[in-house]
């Protein structure tokens, strides 16, 4: 029997609005990520904002962010960024697997631990990305320097993005009527 547990859960106001909020965040940050910036070379090292949003979503509301969700987010990222279809789906699945193992540590500690866990997950994410690049592209085209700068920028901007997303999330939850 096919069960629509996810959909029926989602239709509850306290589930639907946060879900919609994170979808909107992914859309906005995704478009922001591919905006041409007037500073030369900034686009090549621009922080991976979608990675940060996906991480926050998976940590904050794991019941709304399962493997199927991150798989679809990965496909969306591939369509948006022009990368081979399936590339970000693989990366996001690995990320969620890592979060599932890190979650017992994350939930009981403060922001410092969340940030450290994000740094560890993001590093793993970038390493897997480079490995996938080795299989799909020319070795010479791999710019490790730029990837490391992008990783560092992603870890740095995680703090303000976390603050921003949490502020919006609290705003939505405060106005959501739970029946």
């Amino acid at each position, binding site marked *: 029997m096919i069960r629509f547990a996810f959909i029926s859960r989602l239709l509850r106001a306290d589930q639907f609005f946060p879900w919609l909020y994170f979808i909107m965040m992914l859309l906005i940050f995704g478009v922001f990520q*591919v*905006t041409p910036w007037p500073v030369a070379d900034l686009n090549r090292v621009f922080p991976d904002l979608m990675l940060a949003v996906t991480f926050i979503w998976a940590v904050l509301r794991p019941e709304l962010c399962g493997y199927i969700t991150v798989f679809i987010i990965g496909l969306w990222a591939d369509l948006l*960024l022009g990368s081979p279809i*399936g*590339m970000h*789906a693989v990366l996001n699945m690995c990320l969620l697997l890592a979060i599932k193992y890190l979650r017992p540590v994350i939930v009981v500690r403060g922001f410092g631990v969340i940030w450290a866990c994000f740094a560890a997950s993001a590093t793993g994410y970038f390493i897997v990305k480079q490995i996938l690049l080795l299989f799909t*592209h020319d070795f010479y085209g*791999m710019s490790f320097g730029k990837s490391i700068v992008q990783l560092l920028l992603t870890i740095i901007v995680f703090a303000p993005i976390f603050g921003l997303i949490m502020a919006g999330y609290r705003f939505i939850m405060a106005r959501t009527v739970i029946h």
Partner: protein
Amino acid sequence: MKIQKRLRIFSATRSAIMPRLVFVLLMVLALGLLSVQISSPSAMTGLRIATMNVLQPLFSLTSMITQTASDTVFGVLNFASLSSDNARLIAENQQLKIAEQNNMRLMDENTQLRKSLHVVEDLPSNFVTARVISDTSSEFVRSVIVNAGAEQGIKRGYSVLSDGHFVGRVTEVGTSSSRILLITDFASRIPVVVGDSSEQGILSGDNSDTLKLQYITQPQSINAGDMIITSGKGGGVPAGLPVARIDRWDGLVFRSIPNVDLPSLRYVQIVDYGLMPMLEQFDHKPDKFGQTKK
């Protein structure tokens, strides 16, 4: 009691196994999609074009906001140097006037010589200037999206120039936006000729900031700083467009630097050189029996 206990065990086992099973299945699916995409890069073009069409207004809006903000900031920063800029532009204008007179004399001479030699004229070219609204360049791909598409008469395969220099080709065309594959992309291959030596080769990208010059027969005749221009062989790109300059020999191939700073592309000219009939000639699609039409 026994049945209830068995049901509980079954339910616990299922809830423990299901996520792992979903993970494995989705991972296999993702890797499958990835291998399909790598073996046939144009496999999901329709899906990409649909996404591009939907997001085009959003891309336009965000790029306009960043452009306006940067123009304002740079405008304020450059305010102090207005008088020195003005003096420089006056001097530059004088030089350009002299150059214009020389060019007109050369154009006249060129027209006379062409007439006397009965040279076959090049096909007339039409162009559209478009704004870059999204820069999707990353380790995976080097491409940009511009705000001109089928509505503006853009077709797949058109050449893309910036300040007269070849920078890429149109690969996907949406209703009012198109994706341009830059010369630095892994999939880009351009037949070229090296300026002074007339040596022919293929200029290919590898997703780095430089280009590889391959299939050269006499590498000793090539020097650093030599200009690389399109050869026009294959019919996809017209001849004589400047692309890059030779930078160095890295032990395996010549590395060259594009003439245009590709990360700073803001406006491009999408040019129809009348080569589409030639391109379409090679763009056969297999019919239902797997045969290609000629």
